[in-house]
């Protein structure tokens, strides 16, 4: 087929991009070459709208072994051990086909991690659906949960934590972000940089089929009424094959055969071969007749653009082909030498002994478009003034009931019970806590991980929202006793071609960057997902932050359940009474305007680090950070989990009861202390200038709010635990 401008546009390229291709090649590309350009230059692979802004994120630090730019980030957890981790989106496919979309999202991120030589030890996810009232939500939720479980459970990797939210803005575009952590020895990390001339290029894993052709291009476009037609671009996952691929790769990696390895993810064979060659400043030639295909008569175009799952590309040392083949034969996987590295600095493709494509690699990578898109600043909204009268008619008990059973607060046990969260025998904190925790197998160390997002705050004021998500993630790690080390981010936004959406992106990234820098919590990997919108309406800006921390002695891990009667609960951090953008404002007052709570990074850092000191001295019995739903929601969850009650003190601050209970001021935690240690604890808090208040004393069975208001733990449970299960059945 003769290529022209219209065909380029049909491939998702812009007019001027097509012109640039012709200029770079000094000729018109052929059809296969055009397909390759469109795959490499789309938003998903090229980061053309985001690159400029992502550069501003802090990505280095003492503990960072590998920052962004590889298959995943790597951090040092001492004793020669390292954690490889990354989060990635699979939003568009999951909306079109929830089971396969979510499943292959999980499969893809695990592959990114074991490509680097790490055995996956934990999965997490952040999933966002439309309103619970929307007709599609139930099926999408069920499909996504089954898909995540179907893939992760079969792989035998525990799913240890996650986040689920519901909001109208996702009615036409759900979000599915999957994160994986892997464990590797520092001196056995594998990278994607090819080296050496004439080295064999090996294809291993599943056969190549026609599924997922142009998946990455689909992920770079908005949805319209024709989305159903896009079903064939969704890949189909086979977790069994991936399990074999994992074991085979790790077996091969134990030796010294591999020079470079790259999984075939978005844009399949195209991006994997080009990235390896590009990083090594080499050329690569491939004989496409050698690629194991599932279907007959696949064209070079289809072979290069297929996104069939569970495939890897490896550059081997010369003479190691037999050793490698033996391992892949043992695991019943395809193995083929499909090409060689060259010094041409071109990608050259051969099919039926004819050269079917030849493109200088730098035109695909370094010369890919980069845009400085127009964007609009978001002003900090004005604070709403609430008069005492606004709250007079409210009964705390009724409000608490509404909040605890709100879809965004209610227990997600129905979801995580469908994920195997205990396989591998090292899960010491299960889903439902502040962070999931797994032991580093065979050691006294443990790794904590949490994934968070706060789209409402980001929507109201992106800079503050960006900061807040990082801070909340940091707090979740602190709350289990982990020292936060680094994050991965999945940035889900609307169209970058819309200056409001682009502004949300730019300012969220700014907020994330400021918080990460201040907290010494660098970004080591991540992914950007734009065009999360249907027609002209974008989702609320939803950066998901996946943080990882280290617990040096796993026996010091903290959980949120209240432990002992007569212990004292303290609120750490000052309650100012910020109601705007809280769940209370939205569902009780029906107030959607106003600024999100302010983030004071000094307090975040100081409060968090001081709590770690207390934990280190064994002074904290339980801990939980205060976030969505405010203090009363936080203490309710601690009561439910621990099956204990609390008698609350009257606040010494002069703010009213509603603000005391439901405000979402940042930088706060609840911690449980043995009364014998109270003096010691308050001295440490005072010495470190940490604000605290005594919330109350732990008792049996009831939460006693004041003389008139009392709830039993069973009541709290019935509000909080049953909503999701009732909704789904």
């Amino acid at each position, binding site marked *: 087929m003769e290529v022209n401008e219209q065909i380029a546009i049909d491939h998702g390229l812009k007019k001027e991009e097509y012109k640039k291709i012709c200029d770079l090649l000094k000729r018109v590309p052929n059809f296969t070459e055009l397909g390759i350009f469109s795959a490499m230059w789309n938003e998903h692979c090229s980061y053309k709208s985001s690159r400029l802004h992502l550069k501003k994120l802090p990505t280095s630090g003492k503990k960072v072994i590998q920052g962004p730019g590889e298959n995943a980030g790597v951090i040092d957890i001492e004793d020669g051990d390292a954690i490889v981790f990354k989060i990635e989106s699979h939003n568009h496919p999951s909306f079109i086909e929830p089971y396969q979309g979510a499943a292959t999202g999980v499969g893809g991120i695990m592959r990114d991690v074991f490509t680097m030589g790490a055995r996956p030890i934990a999965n997490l996810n952040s999933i966002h659906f439309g309103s619970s009232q929307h007709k599609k939500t139930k099926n999408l939720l069920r499909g996504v949960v*089954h898909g995540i*479980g179907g893939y992760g459970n079969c792989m035998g990797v525990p799913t240890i934590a996650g986040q689920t939210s519901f909001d109208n803005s996702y009615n036409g575009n759900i979000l599915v972000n999957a994160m994986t952590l892997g464990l590797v020895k520092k001196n056995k990390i594998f990278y994607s940089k090819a080296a050496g001339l004439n080295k064999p290029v090996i294809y291993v894993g599943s056969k190549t089929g026609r599924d997922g052709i142009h998946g990455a291009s689909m992920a770079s476009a908005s949805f319209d009424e024709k989305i159903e037609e896009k079903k064939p671009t969704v890949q189909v996952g086979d*977790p069994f094959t991936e*399990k074999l691929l994992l074991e085979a790769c790790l077996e091969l990696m134990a030796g010294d055969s591999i020079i470079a390895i790259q999984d075939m993810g978005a844009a399949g064979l195209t991006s994997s071969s080009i990235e390896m060659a590009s990083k090594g400043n080499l050329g690569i030639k491939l004989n496409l007749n050698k690629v194991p295909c599932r279907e007959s008569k696949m064209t070079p175009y289809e072979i290069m653009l297929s996104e069939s799952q569970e495939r890897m590309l490896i550059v081997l040392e010369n003479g190691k082909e037999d050793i490698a083949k033996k391992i892949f034969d043992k695991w019943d996987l395809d193995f083929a030498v499909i090409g060689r590295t060259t010094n041409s600095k071109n990608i050259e493709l051969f099919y039926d002994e004819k050269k079917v494509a030849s493109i200088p690699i730098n035109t695909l990578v370094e010369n890919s478009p980069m845009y400085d898109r127009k964007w609009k600043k978001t002003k900090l909204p004005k604070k709403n003034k609430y008069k005492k009268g606004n709250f007079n008619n409210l009964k705390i008990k009724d409000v608490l009931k509404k909040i605890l059973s709100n879809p965004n607060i209610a227990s997600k046990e129905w979801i995580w*019970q469908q994920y195997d*969260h*205990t396989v591998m*025998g090292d899960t010491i904190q299960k889903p439902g806590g502040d962070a999931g925790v797994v032991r580093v197998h065979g050691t006294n160390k443990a790794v904590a991980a949490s994934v968070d997002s706060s789209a409402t705050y980001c929507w109201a004021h992106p800079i503050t929202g960006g900061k807040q998500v990082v801070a909340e993630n940091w707090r979740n790690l602190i709350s289990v006793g982990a020292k936060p080390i680094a994050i991965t981010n999945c940035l889900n936004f609307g169209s970058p071609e819309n200056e409001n959406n682009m502004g949300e992106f730019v300012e969220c990234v700014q907020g994330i960057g400021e918080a990460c820098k201040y907290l010494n919590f660098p970004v080591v990997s991540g992914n950007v997902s734009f065009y999360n919108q249907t027609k002209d309406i974008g989702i609320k800006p939803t950066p998901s932050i996946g943080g990882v921390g280290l617990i040096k002695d796993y026996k010091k891990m903290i959980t949120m359940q209240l432990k002992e009667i007569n212990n004292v609960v303290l609120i750490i951090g000052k309650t100012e009474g910020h109601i705007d953008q809280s769940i209370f404002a939205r569902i009780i007052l029906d107030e959607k305007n106003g600024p999100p709570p302010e983030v004071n990074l000094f307090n975040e850092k100081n409060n968090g680090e001081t709590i770690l000191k207390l934990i280190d001295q064994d002074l904290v019995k339980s801990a939980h950070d205060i976030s969505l739903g405010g203090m009363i929601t936080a203490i309710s969850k601690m009561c439910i989990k621990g099956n204990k009650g609390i008698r609350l003190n009257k606040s010494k601050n002069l703010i009213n009861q509603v603000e005391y209970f439901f405000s979402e001021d940042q930088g706060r935690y609840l911690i449980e202390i043995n009364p014998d240690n109270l003096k010691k604890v308050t001295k440490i808090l005072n010495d470190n200038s940490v604000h605290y208040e005594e919330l109350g004393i732990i008792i049996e069975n009831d939460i006693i709010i004041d003389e008139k208001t009392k709830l039993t733990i069973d009541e709290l449970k019935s509000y909080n635990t049953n909503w999701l299960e009732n909704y789904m059945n």
Partner: protein
Amino acid sequence: MKSAVITFPGSNCDRDMHVALNKFGFKNQMVWHNDNELPKSDLVVLPGGFSYGDYLRCGSMASKSKIMQSVIKFAKSGGLVMGICNGFQILVESGLVPGVLLRNKYLEFICKNVFVKIDNKDNPYFKNLDKEVFEFHIAHNEGNYFCTNDQLKEIEDNNQVAIYYCNDNGKTEEKFNPNGSLKNIAGIFNKKKNVLGMMPHPERMIDKSLSGEDGSLFFKNLINNIK
């Protein structure tokens, strides 16, 4: 005491079982599904996981693996063979224990702690256990035990039910049944009671930082019984 854990393609609890057996004093060896011969063992374990991706039917392809010929021979000669979760599914598919395992009643994967009742103690697995109600952990999609009426009669006449789902007081009512299993059956013996298949994973409950410690009681007792 020597044990052997078989790794099938798709097994994923093989390492966990290896760790547990070694922790409680077994000298365990990992055995590849494509091997012909079992090493000399006092106990053979078919671990949990998704052998062959659970494609076709759970456990059916693994039951035809090369090593299974040796395992079946070993079982028929009275050797101890234990199948956990997917291992249980492989045991029913290879005919070593009666019945089948269907998809869970609510069609969803379940991962949680459950209580089970073990009162059938005239066998090498449970002999000398000094309590009846245990907290075990399950993680499966196809654990819904089923068999024909004739089979059930035979199973009950021979006292072959090994484990029932129950509550913390040992009540085996339907409402404490997580997956729809016939008669709350969570585990079953062959006639001679040298082969045990069960859905719960004792290997996930071997220290107090995990889901519980009742698995430790099981393994400690088991190795003492075999000695």
